[in-house]
């Protein structure tokens, strides 16, 4: 690929989704975009670059953005964040919202739905304690085709074997040959919507906890900071933020602070750390 074309794609991706492409990603770029070029009748990426540069063909531009996204995910990914959700986050939210009896969860880069569905199943498991509570699980992603898959809720054997306890599979899925489909009562707990984290998100509402996992890793520092700020703006002052295992706010944003001893779990920087740390003292995760 010519350097000039690489730069066109790099600049476009940065602007459209925040994805940072370094020159060592040329191979990735080629393998993901060649099918897009072919699908649109171009023989190579140079023609596709021309279209992107021109910036008028919204359909092709969207295809490029989607093709470059990495959708890797799994049910109950990394385990511990879900344990923290159950033992620390949820009890605190229930205390905070005792009057409204509402729990508002946002899965902010939900890929094919494993994250919001894991949360929904967890809520089902908790069961009676949540009777009378209204639970809203809002799940968003930039990619329409991955959202279609999420809404459909059908997963391969490979996908359901990573992280999902077998008891959950039996309880919350239906088998369809080699495929496994999440049951309607779990599915109906989740609202999916297309949302670009770089866009204006102020209108989406207010949340008690935001799962923003394994997406900041693709952004550069200013973009990370900007997204962390926007997420703060739609999080309740007593709310929570959960990041992925390789992500941190350190050196990036002053808006959030780590809850000591609980990797990946953040509170608004002016939150009531002392009280929560005391409550968490006896909890080992």
């Amino acid at each position, binding site marked *: 690929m010519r350097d000039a074309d690489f730069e066109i794609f790099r600049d476009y991706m940065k602007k459209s989704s925040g994805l940072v492409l370094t020159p060592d990603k040329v191979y990735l770029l080629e393998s993901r975009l060649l099918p897009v070029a072919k699908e649109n009748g171009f023989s190579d990426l140079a023609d596709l670059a021309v279209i992107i540069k021109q910036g008028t063909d919204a359909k092709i531009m969207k295809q490029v953005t989607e093709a470059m996204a990495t959708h890797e995910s799994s049910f109950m990914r990394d*385990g511990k964040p879900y344990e923290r959700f159950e033992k620390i986050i949820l009890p605190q939210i229930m205390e905070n919202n005792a009057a409204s009896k509402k729990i508002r969860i946002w899965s902010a880069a939900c890929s094919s739905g494993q994250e919001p569905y894991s949360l929904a199943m967890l809520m089902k498991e908790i069961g009676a304690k949540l009777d009378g509570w209204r639970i809203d699980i809002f799940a968003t992603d930039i990619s329409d085709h991955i959202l279609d898959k999420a809404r459909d809720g059908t997963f391969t*054997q490979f996908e359901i*074997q*990573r*992280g999902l*306890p*077998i*008891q959950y*599979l*039996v309880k919350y899925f*239906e*088998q369809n040959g*080699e495929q496994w489909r999440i049951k309607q009562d779990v599915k109906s707990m989740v609202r999916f919507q297309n949302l670009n984290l770089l866009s204006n998100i102020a209108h989406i509402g207010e949340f008690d906890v935001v799962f923003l996992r394994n997406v900041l890793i693709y952004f550069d520092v200013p973009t990370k900071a900007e997204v962390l700020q926007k997420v703060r703006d739609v999080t309740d002052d007593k709310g929570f933020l959960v990041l992925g295992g390789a992500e941190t706010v350190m050196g990036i944003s002053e808006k959030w602070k780590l809850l000591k001893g609980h990797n990946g779990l953040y509170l608004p920087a002016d939150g009531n750390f002392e009280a929560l740390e005391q409550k968490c003292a006896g909890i080992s995760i």
Partner: protein
Amino acid sequence: MKTCLVVDDSRVVRRVARQIVEDLGFECIEAEDGKQALEQCLIKMPDCVLLDWNMPVMTGIEYLRELRKVEGGNSPMVVFCTTENDMSKIMEALAAGANEYIMKPFDSDIIRSKFEQVGVL
């Protein structure tokens, strides 16, 4: 060192599984069918069992039912690892006392994640 009993009538599967569980830090014991596996368990209970379903002499599910009846037989964590991938089979396995269930093909990631789930890792 924790022990893992690998039960499968295929030598190839046992070899691959041995490699994986040893890499995970287990001492590996092998059995070719359910009967051999039960005999091994009566000598010494392993910490976990990676269990095939269809085997000659005694199947995995028959072995599991017997295991859960003997003294100390509730302690091993039993993870099925089988080509049987029907919901009804999974439910049958859970009812017989299985702790987890892997549908073949398997790899080290799946085994690790299932062993973590049952708490032997």
